[in-house]
């Protein structure tokens, strides 16, 4: 049944091209909800084998070259499809106001979602790569047409970085393919690759995927891309697309080349820690709300990479949990930033400081406080559960990294509180530049929050709370799958 997440989303996207624009958002919503419902149902189903890849469907595709259309899932894939479905639903809800070319907008949006489902469910390397590359172009159009600040630059940069990552992945995949003679992931995962091959193919493959996961120093597409993207675009980028990279790094690079991982893991940890601290420090100096959140995404994804680098059960499971957690929190933060921007037409923290938004938008203020708390890693939210698991895992392998990461966490708290204070709870008496004479600071009237936006916000808050209060629900499915990965085998 899981395969229908992909098919339904593609069908929805195709329908959008032919049906009138009045129906656009409803089709998109129906499709996204259907995908989410299927993911949730499969996720909660009892008795499924989460430890190993359970084949959904497998048909020969290009037998001459050994390609199969092979879909499968395990606990990790299910966690990722769940966050994909959730983000997709919320992204549609937060795009309810799109009036410019809505059919095209939702078409590209659903293509990103469909491609992501495909990546998470592929058990054939070629198929996975097809879906992985499929996501690139829709992002370009989403940002370049419906984006804001510097959109064409941001879109092109993001696309070229994604494609660069794709090119590296391509080389790694080809190396695995021509050596092992198969593209089937389970088969590849038990193929004894020569250590010399692993030591060069692993970093190529891992780096290729990690570019999309926001690895320092190739992370710069993320902040500019996030800032340029429309709200839904940022939500998809933070919620899903960055996870594609991390997921690929885990599922393909680490699982295929365990010896390569062993050689390179400390360097990944170094990059991850630099990413955490550096991005947090940069975020502290940003004035654009979306830049702050964009850099915080890079910082949070640094935790994922650190978790992966530990290569032990706790660290990697924490990394997967963090992927889920950041997907939800990142999407929520970007959504709220979008809500503010839609009403005030500015994301500049100095401008926002004079608007007293906590009075005019109490619901958004409340939600932003919750999101900030989750982002800072306050216990009770998913961020805490994930990061503590990663740090526990890292403690065994890279104790120094844990110490430095502590600094990063302080910085995260600092910039999050700063952004929160400047945007909602500032005492500044500065008037908004646009406000004409005779308007006091009270006069900054904003449209009411729509029902769709409220619903989306509540869904995301609920998800981060659920995962934070009862992480066992996720970890029960993640840990068996991680346990059976190759790099943990004796």
């Amino acid at each position: 049944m899981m395969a229908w997440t992909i098919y339904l989303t593609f069908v929805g996207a195709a329908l959008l091209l032919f049906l009138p624009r009045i129906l656009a958002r409803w089709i998109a919503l129906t499709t996204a909800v259907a995908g989410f419902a299927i993911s949730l149902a499969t996720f909660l189903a009892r008795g499924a084998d989460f430890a190993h890849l359970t084949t959904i469907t497998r048909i020969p595709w290009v037998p001459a070259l050994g390609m199969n259309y092979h879909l499968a899932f395990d606990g990790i894939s299910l966690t990722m499809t769940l966050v994909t479905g959730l983000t997709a639903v919320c992204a549609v809800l937060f795009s309810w106001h799109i009036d410019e070319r809505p059919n095209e907008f939702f078409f590209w949006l659903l293509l990103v979602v469909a491609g992501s489902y495909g990546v998470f469910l592929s058990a054939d390397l070629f198929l996975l790569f097809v879906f992985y590359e499929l996501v690139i172009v829709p992002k370009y159009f989403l940002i370049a047409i419906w984006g804001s600040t510097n959109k064409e630059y941001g879109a092109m940069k993001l696309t070229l970085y994604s494609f660069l990552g794709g090119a590296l992945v391509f080389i790694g995949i080809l190396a695995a393919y021509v050596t092992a003679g198969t593209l089937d992931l389970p088969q590849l995962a038990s193929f004894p690759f020569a250590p010399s091959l692993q030591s060069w193919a692993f970093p190529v493959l891992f780096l290729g995927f990690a570019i999309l996961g926001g690895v320092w120093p190739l992370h710069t597409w993320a902040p500019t891309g996030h800032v340029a993207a429309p709200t839904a675009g940022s939500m998809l980028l933070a919620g899903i697309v960055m996870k594609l990279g991390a997921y690929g790094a885990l599922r393909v690079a680490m699982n295929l080349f365990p010896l390569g991982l062993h050689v390179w893991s400390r360097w990944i940890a170094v990059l991850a820690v630099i990413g955490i601290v550096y991005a947090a420090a940069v975020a502290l100096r940003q004035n654009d709300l979306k830049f702050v959140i964009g850099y915080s995404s890079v910082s949070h994804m640094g935790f994922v990479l650190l978790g992966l680098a530990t290569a032990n059960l706790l660290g990697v499971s924490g990394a997967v949990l963090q992927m889920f957690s950041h997907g939800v929190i990142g999407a929520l933060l970007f959504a709220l930033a979008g809500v503010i921007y839609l009403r005030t037409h500015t994301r500049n923290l100095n401008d926002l400081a004079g608007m007293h938004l906590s009075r005019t938008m109490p619901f958004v203020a409340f939600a932003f406080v919750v999101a900030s708390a989750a982002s800072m890693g306050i216990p009770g939210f998913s961020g805490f559960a994930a990061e503590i698991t990663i740090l526990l895992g890292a403690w065994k392998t890279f104790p120094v990294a844990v110490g430095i990461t502590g600094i990063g966490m302080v910085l995260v708290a600092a910039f999050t509180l700063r952004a929160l204070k400047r945007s909602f709870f500032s005492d500044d008496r500065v008037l908004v530049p646009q406000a004409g004479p005779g308007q006091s600071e009270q006069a900054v009237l904003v449209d009411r929050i729509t029902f769709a936006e409220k619903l989306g916000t509540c869904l995301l808050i609920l998800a981060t709370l659920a995962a934070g209060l009862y992480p066992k629900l996720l970890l029960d499915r993640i840990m068996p799958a991680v346990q059976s990965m190759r790099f943990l085998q004796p």
Partner: protein
Amino acid sequence: MSYLELLKLASPEAIVLVTALIVLALGLTKSEQIKPAVSLIAALGLAVAAFAVSRLPQHAVLSDGMLVISPLNSLFKVICLVLAFFTIVLARGDRQIRHHGEYLALILFATIGLLLLIGSEELLMIFIGLELTGLSLYVMTAFDHSDLRSAEAGLKYFLFGSMASAFTLFGLSFIYGLTGTTALTGIAHTFNATPIQPLLAAGIVMTLIGFAFKVAAAPFHLWAPDAYQGAPVPTAAFIASGSKVASFVVLGKIVLVGFGSLHGSADWHALVAGWSPVLAVLAALSIILGNLVALVQKNVRRLLAYSAVAHAGYTLLGLIAGGRNGFSATLFYTTIYAITLVGAFGVIALVRRDTGGDDFSNFAGLRARSPLLAGCMAVFMLSLAGLPPLAGFFGKFYLFSAALRSGQNHGLLWLVALSLFGSLISLYYYLTVLKIIFLDDHDASAIPRTSRYDFEARADFLPSLTVVVLAGAVILLGIVPEGLVARILASLT
């Protein structure tokens, strides 16, 4: 061997020839009504020829390889006939072409050249095919009397082309001198035991130069930008599709069958003299130069010309890899490339007719004017960039995996990495074209809205349909490439 048998085996060529003569004769009449009929007859002739190809026996060899019938040759004859068919459809909607009958006859003559080229495994016949195609294409390039650039392109193409032909003929004479035969199998037999000697090396290099010119590989690509930009659109489409496909088929046969034992090795850690290092250098140069120069182009046709140089480089990878897998990867890639380019030129022809040009500014806001054409152009551009689920993506995967598999220890990794880097650059300029189509606003004042002329209403439908069909083919070959791959592989046994 009786003449009847010869006629039977050469029936596709004969049918196309008769059609060409009929078309030429009809074109002499002054009547205006006859114009659509001429195209119809030409198209019908091609269809009958394709049918005749399918009726040929599986295997036959005539006079020492002058005419060879094999599954591979038949498959590519059909592909070339189909490409010629699309060219004729494009030519039908082109109003810059005055003497329709003559133009169509030239297309058919060029097609005969391609059929001979594909159907022959003998150096002299191959050379005759090359010349027949070349001469027809030179005239077709210079066919637009109203445009000075067309004449310039024709002259350039002719001068470079005759130069390249001279090189090829000179190289072939060396090879004949060394082996005493012009049949590819005979040459292969003689070369089996000979090591590379200076005379042979000179012969190989000169032969390859001629083909590098044909497929527009750097540094023998200088004619391509002008020809692609200045020639009438159908000519450019035919140069980029049919002529290229046939050239790659023949080049593959010459190097892999004729010079099979002189393969050498282009591996970075174990370079061995032979033709493959030569092709590797050509490929690397083409990829670098084509992609970099394409970056600064402001005309879509010129951009496609430089990207064609780069694509010639990618396609050579399969031949360098060699073997059945490499050859089939090259053939697959060149076929889908041809389909994609005919489609792209179809879009260009329509845009040109509506806006009077094919610069970037003419494409601005195409999405608003015609969402269908814009969507098809997106399919073609993204396929050229190599993005899934389009044919170009699978083609590249096939090509690069074949290249990486050949040789020892991933010896061709350097070329694969270079190609991927080239693809990265190419994505930028393809996306730029799409950005102009989908993002930029259509500036109504910049485009002289010429009065729509009379037979357009009918002529409009067919080119649009062609473009849609080709876009569908590109998508279909990307999702289910098995059909074509299996066919090519089966024909290569």
